[in-house]
């Protein structure tokens, strides 16, 4: 007996682990589950381990103190050799993990894998998703910079809307009256102990159930799940047309996990760590806070809600979404698994995916946010002011100095909160402009109190010139009729409103 074998036996005699491992490794899975579609779960777990390892390494240096966290991150970035790289791997690992977990969930949903007897696996998976998002959010707070500060502020304001106990919840969340040292300690505890501990435990439960219940078979149209017969059918399938999990299916898991890790490293190398951004000093208000990628869609949704829906939506929507996810396997625990026979499921998934993509995309360039510096930074294009009368020029100055530009684009620059004004004169008559400027309406504040009548006249004179050369400005038909001597019918096809 070789020396290695003797050592192995010495341990095996005490650990007795060979049996269970062999069983797990060699258990048969239906042949066609050895597919590239089935690799996301294991990749998510690999990323979790990567996050644990890099997280521990970062914790060697990071200081969870409101006074020093930001500096310690800068030390990591700039003074400790390859500290930036570890931060980058941790940040990109987080992005990838959120993405892979979502893809895994979408795939499981599409393949009907949550049906009997795997309902609980799905339920645990929903909590794993929530915990992953919890990690992403608390991680963003630990990157204690301006975005973290104000992003957490948004969380606080959402909490505060809970009826009756909102105030108490805020105190609990912050560990005090404001975002400060106690808050960071709390989020450190959440991010480093509570959430990852729960995450690892639930991931173990999740994987245990996958091993016990078997990998979901490839859905076939017509192969319907019945509670009474499914287990026997599955066992027969795995037995008759099955292959041992290792190596048949597992090699793809390994290759994909390796590829994902490589992608994380490449992103980290090329794109670097995220932040830290500005100092976490609330008195520095020249900031445009923005959440991390996984939460951009929430940021967008929050800016589109009408004020009256705000509180009900913020409070009900998350609960409804989570309840909906948890209900999935209990509403549809039997029946067809194939997407060919589940149009509602496919439609629901597509809708969610498209909505998510649209909102995330909007969240990336935030058309609803005023451009705070546009009024002083973006000049009026010269072509709009050539041959302009003094009054028109004065109007252009007022347009800039009254910050109209922060919300309205001209010449492709400026905010996008309101419409671009390059051809406003074709859409509004001078009277309509005057009315809108003075009284506001919709998303436009009223400027009546801030502009003197001459200023309004100048501004409108400027706006009146904003129309393409070949398109006449809009005119009030009645007025035109009076001006042209009365009685004349309004010109057909004019831009009168």
């Amino acid at each position, binding site marked *: 007996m070789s020396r290695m074998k003797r050592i192995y036996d010495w341990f095996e005699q005490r650990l007795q682990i060979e049996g269970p491992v062999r069983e797990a490794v060699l258990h048969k899975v239906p042949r066609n589950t050895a597919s590239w579609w089935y690799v996301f779960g294991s990749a998510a777990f690999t990323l979790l381990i990567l996050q644990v390892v890099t997280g521990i390494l970062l914790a060697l240096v990071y200081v969870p103190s409101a006074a020093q966290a930001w500096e310690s991150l800068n030390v990591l970035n700039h003074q400790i050799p390859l500290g930036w790289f570890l931060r980058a791997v941790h940040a990109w690992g987080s992005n990838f993990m959120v993405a892979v977990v979502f893809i895994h969930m979408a795939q499981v949903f599409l393949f009907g894998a949550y049906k009997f007897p795997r309902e609980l696996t799905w339920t645990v998976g929903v909590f794993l998703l929530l915990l992953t998002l919890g990690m992403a959010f608390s991680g963003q707070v630990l990157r204690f910079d301006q975005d973290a500060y104000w992003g957490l502020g*948004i969380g606080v304001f959402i909490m505060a809307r809970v009826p009756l106990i909102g105030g108490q919840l805020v105190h609990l969340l912050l560990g005090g*009256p404001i975002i400060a040292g106690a808050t960071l300690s709390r989020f450190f505890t959440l991010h480093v102990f509570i959430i990852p501990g729960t995450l690892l435990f639930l991931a173990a439960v999740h994987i245990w159930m996958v091993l016990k219940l078997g990998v979901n078979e490839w859905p076939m149209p017509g192969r319907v799940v019945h509670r009474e017969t499914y287990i026997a059918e599955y066992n027969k399938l795995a037995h008759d047309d099955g292959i041992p999990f290792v190596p048949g299916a597992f090699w793809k898991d390994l290759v994909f996990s390796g590829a994902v890790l490589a992608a994380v490293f490449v992103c980290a190398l090329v794109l670097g760590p995220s932040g830290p951004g500005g100092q976490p000093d609330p008195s520095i208000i020249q900031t445009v806070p923005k959440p991390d990628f996984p939460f951009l869609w929430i940021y967008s949704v929050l800016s589109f809600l009408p004020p009256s829906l705000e509180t009900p939506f913020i409070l009900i929507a998350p609960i409804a979404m989570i309840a909906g996810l948890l209900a999935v396997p209990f509403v549809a625990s039997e029946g067809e698994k194939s997407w060919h026979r589940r149009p509602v499921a496919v439609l629901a998934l597509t809708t969610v995916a498209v909505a998510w993509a649209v909102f995330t995309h909007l969240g990336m360039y935030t058309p609803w946010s005023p451009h705070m510096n546009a009024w002083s930074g973006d000049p009026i294009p010269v072509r709009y002011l050539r041959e302009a009368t003094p009054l028109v020029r004065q109007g252009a100055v007022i347009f800039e100095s009254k910050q109209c530009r922060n919300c309205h684009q001209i010449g492709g620059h400026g905010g996008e909160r309101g419409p671009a004004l390059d051809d406003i004169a074709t859409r509004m008559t001078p009277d309509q402009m005057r009315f809108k400027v003075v009284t506001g309406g919709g998303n436009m504040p009223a400027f009546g109190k801030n502009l003197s009548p001459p200023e309004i006249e100048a501004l409108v004179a400027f706006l009146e010139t904003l129309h393409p050369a070949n398109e006449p400005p809009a005119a009030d038909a009645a007025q035109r009729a009076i001006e042209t001597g009365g009685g004349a019918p309004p010109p057909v096809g004019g831009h009168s409103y």
Partner: protein
Amino acid sequence: MNPDERSDNPEKASTGPEAGAAREQASERDGPAAVSRRWLLLKAGIALNGLVGVAMAIPIIRYLLWPVRKDAAYNSWVSLGRTSEFPVGETRLANFRTPWTRPWDGQTDHVPCYVRREGSAQFTVFAINCAHLGCPVRWFPQSQLFMCPCHGGVYYADGSRASGPPERGLFTYPHRITGGNLEIDAGQMPTLSNTAKLTNIATPGEEEGCSCRG
């Protein structure tokens, strides 16, 4: 289950061909259905641990709930400086140190707010936080508007809502003037659920002086 078997002493038969049967008897006697001293003792053990657990949970919950306190425990009057620092008719950014701090709070206890002085003794002090979701609003004196960088909330000079997602105007702090100093009652992040909610947003006519703490 045979009561005679149950009374057998399993130790007697722990070896030999009858060992299997004896073990079975023993396990029957220890099965959950049986009433025995061992089961009673086990239950006693569980009860003891439950009791100790509850006894420990009380201080732990008390410890965890520590930050949940009355507003008065966090708030107090802080000075924003001499009233003369705020010109009449203007809105200025001011900073104060929040009253409730820890040594490791760093810069986070430097809280900004806007002071609007309408007349020699008429002030309104606005929170920096947008009433929508708390982002820091910026004051633009030229257009007399507060604009929020987050979701495009806009407020007029008097703090009332002009446009965007906020459902209400800016939060205000209760204020007073003592010995030429402008003081505000501050200490918490103003949100829809603490005292800020009770504060009337002054329309230009009926300004401040409200007993905002209800």
